[in-house]
Structure formats: structure tokens, C-alpha cells
């Protein structure tokens, strides 16, 4: 890949973005409380992008922002641009109510955390599919055929699932049914907010595999939002890390895992249980992430960061491109790479490769 994007401020550049998020901020209480702070990020067509953040880092807000669906008193500012194809641009935040209604679910769809709570408990699963089709003026019988196809792609028995009430299905079945529901209108982008959080490990893995298959079959762009870094690392092409309502690092998966430049990303990597690393090397991150009120000047990670200097508390670090496609918001990213060692094998060399699969 040749170095095409030389400007250092544009940060994250992709060739054919399907969704561009520019300077997105979400505020509550008339601007006093920031739950998403000036996030700029693009999603490339047909990729799987993993967004990682602890709970309370603003990752659900980022997900809702992509559908312009911030919960009630919250205010979303900035720009969300959607490109159905390379030459068309839709400004999502300026859509009329009716346009927004058809944009959601049909263009950009979403899977929430906790499938159980996403279904109306007193309605059969099938009715949810029909309701959605009717709301978007789709042909119901054709749509239901597609629904059955989706459900069997997800290894579910379509007739049984459609004729069940949500509580009659197991957690994993509900989650897959919800994924099918979100794919019903063949969206271009599927945003998933902790889609596997409530499931056991085995089920998480199998859902990830199914998602990869779905992506190949239906050519959908996926945004996978989670707190579980290793989980998404096995799936994503590119990754982004959120800390305290801000994007701190974004780049190709191997770069993020093997050569991350932000002290927080590196700490996060070191804090996750790892077979290669001895237990004593596993380090939890000391301190707490800041509350959404009164975001301090300077880097919000400064008070937990071992490398923090005066510069860090005085100036907000720019989100800068450090090598192709890899951006970091840190004054000391080079120092971080040098001084904070990663505790797993193969790190800081060429990046870890996903078992046999080289993209």
C-alpha cells in the first residue's frame, strides 16, 4: 500500500467509506455532560470494523449516533455521512423524519446488546419480522421467505423460531433471531452493540463465525462494538479504541494489536487474560476512567498514564496519523511503543496473524 494520505490531521482515511462520522459529539444537560466527544471515524465498505471500549466509554453512543438514534434528552452534533455508493452522499443528521425512518434498518441496521430485551415479550418472533416489513412497505410474503432463509443461514429452524415467543428461545437463539431481524431489509451496514455479551463463550465464538459467513454472503459492512478486545480481534479487519468518550486509536487490526501507539490500548492488551503471558504479567489498569461531566483539559487518560507529562495535562493530543491508516491520539506514542512492553508473544514485531487467515 503506498502512502496516499499524507495530511496528518485528517487522521483516519479510508478509500471508499460507506459511513463517515465527523466530529460527532453527544451532550446531555444542555452541553455540560459529554458522552461522546468529537469523534471522527470512517467505515470502509465491506469491512468488519471492531470498536473497543470499556463500559462507560461512549461506545453505545457511537452506535446510536450512526443511526441518529441518541436516547431522548441527548443532543448529537457533528456530521454523519452515508454513501450508498461511491458517488452518493446522504447527510444523515439532516434527513426528514420519514427519510430517517426508511434509512434506519433498511440502510443501516443495528443489533442491540441483550436480545431478550429487544423483542416485545408478548409478541411472537415472526410478528416482529412482519411488522418491520409492513413498516417499510415491503412485500410481506417475499420478505418472510427471505427471513426464513436468513434464519436457516444462522442454523435456526425458521418455522419454529417464527412461531415462538421470545422467552421460549434460548439466549443464543434469540441473539441469532435478532441478527436475522436486523438483516431483514438487507442493510448495507450492520451496527452491533455488544451482540454477544450475555452469551457463554462457546456461543460467542459460534456467533462470530456465523457473522463472518453472513458478511461474505450478503456483502454487509459490519461495525462490531464491544468491551472484549480479544473477541473482536479475531474478527475485525480494522479496529478503533474508545477511551472516555473519545477515539484514542484506530487502525488495521494487526497494527492495533501488535504495534499500538496509545498507552491505553497497550494497557488494555496487557490486561486481558492471555495464554502466552504468565499470570503475574497480567496488569489491570490502575485508576478509573473519568466521568462524563467537565471533561478536563489535556489528555483524558493522563492521570492513569505512566508516561504522562506536563504537555499531556495541558494540551489535548491531536488524533494523528502515525503510519498508513494507523492513527493515535497521544503525545508520546513513540515512547509508548518503546517503553510499554506487550506481554504476549509476537507483539511488536510484525503484528499477530489470525490463525492461517491473512487478509
Amino acid at each position, binding site marked *: 500500500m503506498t502512502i496516499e494520505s499524507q495530511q496528518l490531521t485528517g487522521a483516519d482515511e479510508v478509500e471508499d467509506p460507506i459511513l463517515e462520522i465527523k466530529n460527532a459529539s453527544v451532550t446531555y444537560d444542555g452541553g455540560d455532560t459529554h458522552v461522546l466527544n468529537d469523534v471522527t471515524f470512517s467505515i470502509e465498505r465491506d469491512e468488519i470494523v471492531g470498536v473497543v471500549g470499556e463500559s462507560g466509554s461512549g461506545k453505545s453512543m457511537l452506535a446510536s449516533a450512526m443511526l441518529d438514534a441518541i436516547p431522548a434528552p441527548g443532543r448529537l452534533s457533528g456530521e454523519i455521512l452515508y454513501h450508498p455508493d461511491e458517488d452518493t452522499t446522504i447527510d444523515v443528521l439532516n434527513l426528514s423524519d420519514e427519510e430517517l425512518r426508511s434509512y434506519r434498518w433498511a440502510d443501516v441496521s443495528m443489533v442491540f446488546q441483550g436480545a431478550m430485551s*429487544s423483542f*416485545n415479550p*408478548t409478541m411472537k418472533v415472526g410478528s416482529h419480522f412482519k411488522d418491520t416489513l409492513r413498516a417499510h412497505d415491503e412485500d410481506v410474503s417475499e420478505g418472510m421467505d427471505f427471513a426464513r432463509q436468513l434464519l436457516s443461514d444462522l442454523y435456526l429452524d425458521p418455522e419454529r423460531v417464527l412461531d415462538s415467543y421470545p422467552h421460549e428461545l434460548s439466549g443464543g437463539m434469540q441473539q441469532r433471531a435478532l441478527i436475522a431481524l436486523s438483516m431483514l431489509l438487507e442493510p448495507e451496514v450492520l451496527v452491533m452493540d455488544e451482540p454477544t455479551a450475555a452469551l457463554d463463550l462457546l456461543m460467542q465464538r459460534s456467533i462470530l463465525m456465523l457473522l463472518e459467513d453472513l458478511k461474505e454472503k450478503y456483502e454487509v459492512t459490519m461495525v462490531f462494538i464491544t468491551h472484549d478486545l480479544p473477541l473482536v480481534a479475531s474478527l475485525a479487519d480494522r479496529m478503533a479504541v474508545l477511551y472516555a468518550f473519545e477515539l484514542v486509536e484506530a487502525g488495521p487490526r494487526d497494527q492495533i494489536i501488535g504495534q499500538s501507539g496509545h498507552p491505553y490500548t497497550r494497557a488494555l492488551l496487557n490486561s486481558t487474560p492471555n495464554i502466552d503471558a504468565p499470570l503475574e504479567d497480567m496488569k489491570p489498569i490502575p485508576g478509573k476512567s473519568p466521568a462524563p461531566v467537565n471533561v478536563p483539559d489535556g489528555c483524558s487518560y493522563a492521570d492513569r498514564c505512566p508516561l504522562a507529562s506536563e504537555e499531556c495535562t495541558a494540551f489535548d493530543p491531536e488524533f494523528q496519523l502515525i503510519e498508513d491508516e494507523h492513527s493515535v491520539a497521544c503525545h508520546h506514542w513513540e515512547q509508548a511503543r518503546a517503553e510499554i512492553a506487550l506481554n504476549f508473544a509476537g507483539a511488536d514485531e510484525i503484528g499477530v496473524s489470525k490463525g492461517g487467515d491473512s487478509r
Partner: protein
Amino acid sequence: MGNYYIRRTARVFATVFIVTSLTFGLIRLLPGGPFTQLRVRLLRQGVPASEVDARIANLQNIQPDAPLWRQYIDYMLSAMQGDFGESISLGKPVAQVVAEAVPWTVFIVLVSTVLIFLFGILLGAIQAYWEGSRFDKAISALSISLMSIPFYVIAVLALFILAYQFQWFPTAGTHGTDVEPGLTLEFLVSALEHAALPIFSYTIGGIGGQALAMRGNSIQVLGNDYVEVARLRGLADRRIATWYVARNAILPLYTGFLLLLGFRLGGTVILEQIFSYPGLGYYLWSALESNDYPLMMGTFLVITVALVIGVYIADLTYSKIDPRISQGESDAY
């Protein structure tokens, strides 16, 4: 789950059986015993002393001098056949008195309870929709005030002001004495006129509680993810309001409806007394006053059976209506 239905049905019979036995026991505890009053009355009527016992046996299906277990079996057997003996004060079979009284009481209780739920659900839903608004606060305050007024206070006030002072409504009876019961317009109007105040006073106080319950349920449902997801799925507001919010908010109220129906049947003792409205409660009270034990037990048993059946229906149908509940684990209470 057929097993559950059998067990549940058996429990209905068991309950009725126990309550019937209980009434038998209570009669024995009554001051002076069950037959003293009757014996005195019959003697006063000039029945020869030698025939009194036979007459009593005839009237109450019980041999006064038989052993207790024998009396108990006789009592239970005749009660099972719907034969509660003859009313002492009215000189009519208890079954006949009850049969005449039941429709009026059921009419009052059913209409007022339905009204309570209609108004309560409507008010509560509107409140939840505009949660925190001035309307919401005003209605909440009103609901709480209404809950603190016993229905008989409203009844007495309504009777005092609307019936006695302004004479807009009759003060007693189920229909005008000059009107022949039948399917005539005249009769219907008269019956409605007589029922208006009892229904009104039995409705007003209950609305507050239901409105608060509906408001709470709706607000809870509105906070659920599936409502937000439905919005994202592009569903029309009306579809969401009815099938996603109202349905889930009203369902838990359903068992409450049937239970309240049965419960309020008992309250008619006070209500019908105030309006001199000859229904079940009215006869229960007047039976007590005139020591008419057969009538007292008959009306008491009928009210009990109505409540038992109400709970039974609630139990059996709730799982059909709310899919989240499977049979056997429903807590109708």
C-alpha cells in the same frame, strides 16, 4: 399440562367445600344457636310446640335433634344442590331470593368495574405519555385523593345531595315500582336511573388506583429496549403505542380485573345498603339484621363461589392472554 387444569379445578371444589363447612360451623357459633330464633318465631305464629321441630326440618333441611355429623351431611348435601332452605324473614326459598338478587348486583359490580378499568387505563396511559407534565401531576394528585375516599362516603354524599336534596335520582330500589320488569324502554330507563348513583359511587373511588397502576406499568414499558428497537425498525407510532406499549402495560392488570370483580362483590354489602338496592349484599345484611341465617349463608356462599370462580378464570386464562406465563406458575394473586 392437563395435570395442572385438573389440580386447579379440584382446588375450586375444595375451596367451596371448605367454605361451606365453615359456614356450617359458624351457624353453630351464632348467639343462641341456629334454631332458637326460628323456634321462637314459629311458636309466636301459633305453630304447636310439637310440630315446631318438624317445621324447622322442613324449612332448613336439617333435623334439629339429629347428631351434629348428621346435620352436617344434610346441610352439605342440600347446599350442593343449591338448596339453602327457606328464608325466615321473607318466607321464600333462599334460592329464589338469591336468583332475583344476583342479576342486579352483577350488573352494578360489572359495569362499575369495567368503567374503573376503562377510565383508569385511559388516564394512566395519557399520564405516562406526558410523564412529568402538569396534566400528569394534576391527575396523580387527583388519583391519590380519590383513593383516600371510601366509596361509601361518595355514596352517602351522592345520596344526600343528588337524591334527597336535588331529587334528581331515586333513593331506593332497582327500578320504579310502577314499572313492570321486561324488555321495555321504560323499564330499562328506570333501571338505569336507579343504578346510576350506586354505579357512580362505586366507580369514582376506584379509578385513581387503576390510573396510578397503569401509569406505572406504562412508564416501565416505555423504558424497555424493545420499544426503542421498534422505533428504529421504523414502526408507526400508533403500532408501537398499541401493540408494544399498551398491550404490555395492560396485560398485568388483567388478573387484577377479575380479582377486583370478585372482591367488589363483597363490598356491595355496604353499597346496596346505602342505596336500599335489593341485591346480594342488601339481602346478606338484612338477613343478618333479622337473624335470617339460611338467607345469610345462602348469599354468603353465592358471593364466595363468585369470587372463587373469578380467581379460577383468572388463573386459567392468564397464561392464554400473557404468553410469558406458562400454566401452573401463574400468580394470579
